[in-house]
């Protein structure tokens, strides 16, 4: 048996899966406690990029981040293990099942496994390849240029949705949705968009994510009128979305398989 085959079989071993899953559970339990106590160390991970974060916050706060280093390694091992195991099984199904009716639906779990690997790869690419400009604030009427001449974003004003009622008395008159009205321009193209929490706007290859806004009260409150955004470029989001699409395909095959068995 060649060295390559021995390594391939060992990497795809179910025993390895069990050991890694056990270690992952242990590591994530430690991570849960560490995150609770040291959230501030991990918040910049979303802005500064994985390698930069590992070299600064990660190494500097070794006691609080060791579990994260271990998590990266364990996820890598689990991904390799899943890939080998799934590929072995896939080859077996294709070889033994081809020609029989409905053999394709047996691929469902393996398609979903590949999808999860793709989603994980998307996350890794996102941490490695994405760039982020946090804390960009605008007042009504002000504009900012996106990097590399990708376009201009102008904050026009709010069209807020305000809570009125006495069910939550303390929140009467507070803004439920800011509805920040944006005008986006690039190379003569103009588009209007509405920005909210959990409702980002994409323009010129960049995503605009709302971090904060004021006033929070319908009748002004005491702060200046502004929105604060993070501008993010994440080319790997396509990988992640492709993974999700593949997962949906796998789910569809799985449901189809159940239907056939019935």
């Amino acid at each position, binding site marked *: 048996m060649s060295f390559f085959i021995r390594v391939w079989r*060992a*990497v795809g*071993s179910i*025993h*390895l899966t069990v*050991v*890694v899953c056990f*270690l992952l559970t242990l590591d994530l339990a430690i991570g849960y406690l560490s995150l609770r106590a040291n*959230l*501030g*160390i991990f*918040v*910049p991970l979303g*802005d*500064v990029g994985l390698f930069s974060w*590992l*070299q*600064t*916050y*990660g*190494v*500097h*706060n070794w006691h609080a981040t060791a579990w994260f*280093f*271990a998590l*990266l*390694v*364990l996820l*890598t*091992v689990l991904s*390799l293990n899943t890939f080998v195991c799934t590929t072995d099984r896939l080859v077996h199904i294709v070889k033994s099942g081809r020609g029989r009716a409905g053999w394709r639906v047996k691929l469902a779990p393996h398609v979903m496994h590949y999808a999860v690997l793709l989603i994980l790869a998307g996350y890794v690419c996102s941490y490695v390849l994405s760039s982020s400009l*946090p*804390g960009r*604030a*605008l*007042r009504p009427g*002000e504009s900012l240029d996106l990097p590399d001449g990708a376009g201009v974003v102008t904050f026009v004003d709010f069209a807020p949705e305000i809570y009125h009622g006495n069910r939550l*008395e*303390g929140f009467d008159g507070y803004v439920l949705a800011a509805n920040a009205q944006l005008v986006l321009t690039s190379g003569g193209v103009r588009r209007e968009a509405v920005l909210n929490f959990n409702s980002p706007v994409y323009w010129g290859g960049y995503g605009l994510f709302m*971090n*904060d806004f*004021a006033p929070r009260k319908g009748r002004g409150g*005491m*702060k*200046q*009128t*502004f929105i*604060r955004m*993070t501008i993010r470029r994440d080319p790997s989001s396509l990988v992640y979305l492709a993974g999700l699409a593949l997962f949906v395909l796998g789910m569809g095959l799985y449901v189809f398989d159940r239907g056939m068995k019935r």
Partner: protein
Amino acid sequence: MRLIRLVFISAVLPFLMILSACQDEAEKKQSFLNVGEFAVNKKATYIEVRDGAGRTLALIPRGGKAPEGFAPTMVVEVPVQRVIAYRPFEVGVMKALGVMDTLVGVTAPKDKWFIDDIRPRFDSGQVAFIGDYSRLDYERIKAQHPDLVMTWDPSIVPMMDSLGIPVVVTSTPVASCLSTHIRFAEFIAPFFGKEAEAQAFYQRIRTALADIRERTKGMKAPKAMWGDIFEKRVLVEPGNAWVAELVGLAQSDYLFDDVYGRSCIEISTERFLYSGKDADIYFTYRTPARGATSKAALARTNPLLARVRPLSPEGRTYAPLPHYSQSSDRLDEILTEISAILHPQAYPGHQLKYFVELPDTDPQVSKD
């Protein structure tokens, strides 16, 4: 056996490789400092700092060349010579660093200051009241020619950008933990070139914390709460705030330990009263000047408050004195005082300097 070897090769080796890659960055590690979400990263020609809003600023020597990729208002020439500070906390830290002569503007008028050094600076015209945070006087700010504005309010950033004044946001979306609170001086020190002073300040506080830990070891844990019921809202210090961590460090139970979020976070009245029935010690936000002169006076401001145990004769209630929030240069003394309030038996003869214990009722004033 093969499996163990495989796990070793696939898990431990990459781990060691990452470590060794990080060892190559040993120099970077030495020059990097993070204080909670704040960070200071020393580069070859400038210092990169990340503020509480996640903005990255470049600190360059005065007259130096600005690095590429930074907008003009994201570049600060250091040491800064003219500073506007929003919070008394920053003013206190500036005092600890010995840079009070750089302060040129604050958001509280002269009669609201109770610490040395400030009032004479108002009189000499060096320090100006730039308006309340909700009604800033931008003309006055411009006239003070600040090199830097230190603010908790990110909403002023666009306006300051248009005035060409760099801003550093000194608060984070969630409350500062104890470590961030006591090390904050290390974050602002590079703006003033006072890293050594910040280290000395931090060491003084660490010594105080070690003393607190030692003195309170093994003591029976009292239950403490920190917050207030106001006219329309109930605000408390969450479990992730520095006061909550300090209470825990001083062998005590903080009753809002499960609440997470920003400082002065809103909770329901029912939650406040539920914890209040078990509490031994209560810290109110109000100073005596704002009505916290006695337990009875506090209960008059909101009758619901009378239901919390510390407002009854068997509990203890403390109010901060006006200079408490302006004395961050004496943070070691403040931490020690809070510990002394929690465990008076561990600090025999301790005289309160920053808090006052409220009597059951206001003293009767003779009409004569």
